[in-house]
């Protein structure tokens, strides 16, 4: 089973919920993998402190042009939707960072002038944090295209047990890639106008994909009650409401898991553990 933790708005507590949930599920006897799909800014390792034992570099095949064979027919330029290959003067140039690796140019070239080389976009690290299997993606700085790396991280999902996918903030490509085949998406929000606006966008996205959702309201006593009312009105399960607590913020700031550092915190997440593990046992 894959459970994605997403949010729309950043900084609402996705990683806190995802890491705590992974550890609590594991302590309850469930086979768990924590997969950090926020490959632009992966933070789960700060809290889980995994021992990294393996590394895989992730590549995309990008075109190279043999200028001697190229007849400047521009067929590659025409098929490319990303402006990544362009005939300029007497040369055909490739802009690798724009390339989505669709392979169209290679197939369409009548002169067989285009081949592909591997371009590294980042890496996936594997390890363990106690009983929790751990993996994270790290996008190379300056790379724009993160979904292929998210895909590579998700290949570590468990065949049995629960894989917790920590999604990036937002609602576009890398988030869609993270959540698209999840069994449940837990949206972590905070009850503020920004939080609610971005929650609605995230709900829109998950509904479009057709995945069941549930909500966790973090810092539930700041802001206003519009988020709770919205969830009730739209019949969205609110699995946990976690009050604002300076101790949690301080534990977070130093990389401690609040379930270990703050008394009573793990009780707040028990409904989630029950829902996920109580039901599948």
């Amino acid at each position, binding site marked *: 089973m894959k459970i994605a933790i997403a*949010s*729309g*708005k*950043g*900084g*609402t507590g996705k*990683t806190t919920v995802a890491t705590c949930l992974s550890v609590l599920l594991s302590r309850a006897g469930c086979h768990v993998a924590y997969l950090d799909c*926020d490959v*632009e*800014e992966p*933070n789960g390792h*700060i809290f889980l402190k995994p021992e990294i034992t393996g590394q895989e570099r992730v590549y995309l095949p990008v075109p190279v042009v043999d200028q001697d064979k190229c007849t400047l027919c521009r067929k590659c330029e025409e*098929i490319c*939707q*990303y402006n990544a290959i362009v005939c300029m003067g007497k040369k055909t140039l490739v802009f690798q960072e724009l390339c*989505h*690796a*669709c*392979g*169209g140019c290679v*197939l*369409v070239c009548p002169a067989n002038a285009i081949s592909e080389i591997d371009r590294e976009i980042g890496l996936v690290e594997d390890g363990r944090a106690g009983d929790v299997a751990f993996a994270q993606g790290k*996008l190379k*700085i*300056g*790379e*724009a*295209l*993160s979904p292929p790396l998210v895909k590579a991280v998700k290949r570590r999902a468990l065949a049995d047990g629960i894989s917790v996918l920590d999604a*990036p*903030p*937002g*609602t*576009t*490509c*890398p*988030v*869609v890639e993270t959540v*698209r085949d999840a069994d449940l998406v837990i949206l972590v929000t905070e009850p*503020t*106008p*920004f939080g609610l*606006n*971005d929650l609605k*966008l995230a709900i*829109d*996205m998950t*509904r*479009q*994909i057709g995945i069941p959702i549930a909500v966790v309201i973090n810092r539930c006593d*700041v*802001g*206003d009650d519009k988020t709770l009312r919205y969830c009730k009105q739209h019949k969205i399960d609110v699995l946990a409401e976690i009050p604002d607590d*300076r101790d949690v*913020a*301080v534990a*977070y*700031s*130093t*990389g401690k898991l609040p379930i270990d550092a703050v008394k009573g915190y793990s009780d707040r997440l028990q409904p989630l553990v029950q829902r996920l593990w109580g039901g599948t046992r």
Partner: protein
Amino acid sequence: MKELVVISGKGGTGKTSIVASFASLAQNKALADCDVDAADLHLVLAPRILSRERFVGGRDVRILPGHCTACGKCEEICRFDAIYFDGPGNGMVPKTFRIDPLACEGCGVCAHFCAENAIESKDAQSGEWFISETRHGPMVHARLFAAQENSGKLVSLVRKQAKQLAQERGLELLLVDGSPGIGCPVIASVTGTDFVLIVTEPTLSGKHDLGRVLELTKHFGVKSAVCVNKFDLNVEMTEAIEAFAQESGAKALNRIRYDVAVTKAQVMGTTVVDYTTGAVAQEIKALWQQVVSEMR
């Protein structure tokens, strides 16, 4: 005209609240919300929309079931595992191929090579963008439709339109709210800009993400400075982050404290500096003065 882009690396550090306050403090400026994934600036600035335009971000590719002969060429050449053999049958074959729109990147390669011309590929509207008027000046913003791609392209468009608007109106500053992360929309926000302000928070996650975003601004050769927001949550960490920023060649600017007034202002739909005259507002004002002199 100068352009200031505010980003954060980590999400939820208070970027948009600071941009909204800057919008109130700055003179002769235009605004752009480039966090097109999860735009929030409009919630505070309450824009009155003057014009609304379609954003064509990618291509909608669809197999026409009536024409598909199930030859399998499309499935063979698709690099995105977006083609499934579970489409409806027709008079010729019991099953046809189908494209999963979520997996499809809109490259159109399948449509190009389909021998039966059974694949349709057309421009897809993936969002809309607006020119608006707010009480703090003109603003360009956008909305990407749910589960759509090409946010980088939309960010570039918003920035370009906002620059044009600022030039037409003879304004001196373009104030840009960026998005979290270091990927495509962030790259599209910072390339070629005059100055980047990175708003972070005094946590290990904030520090870690700042490291990556500073590498990014260095990679693109953009001048940047750092502000630690909510600094009093962990003063030791704030000091460590500021020292780290200086080492990385980015100036550490004025700190801002944690204050519930920031959330209250947001709930009231106003900016922090308009909501309170307290210490948090004074700190934001001091930060703004520093940013102004850094940009000179």
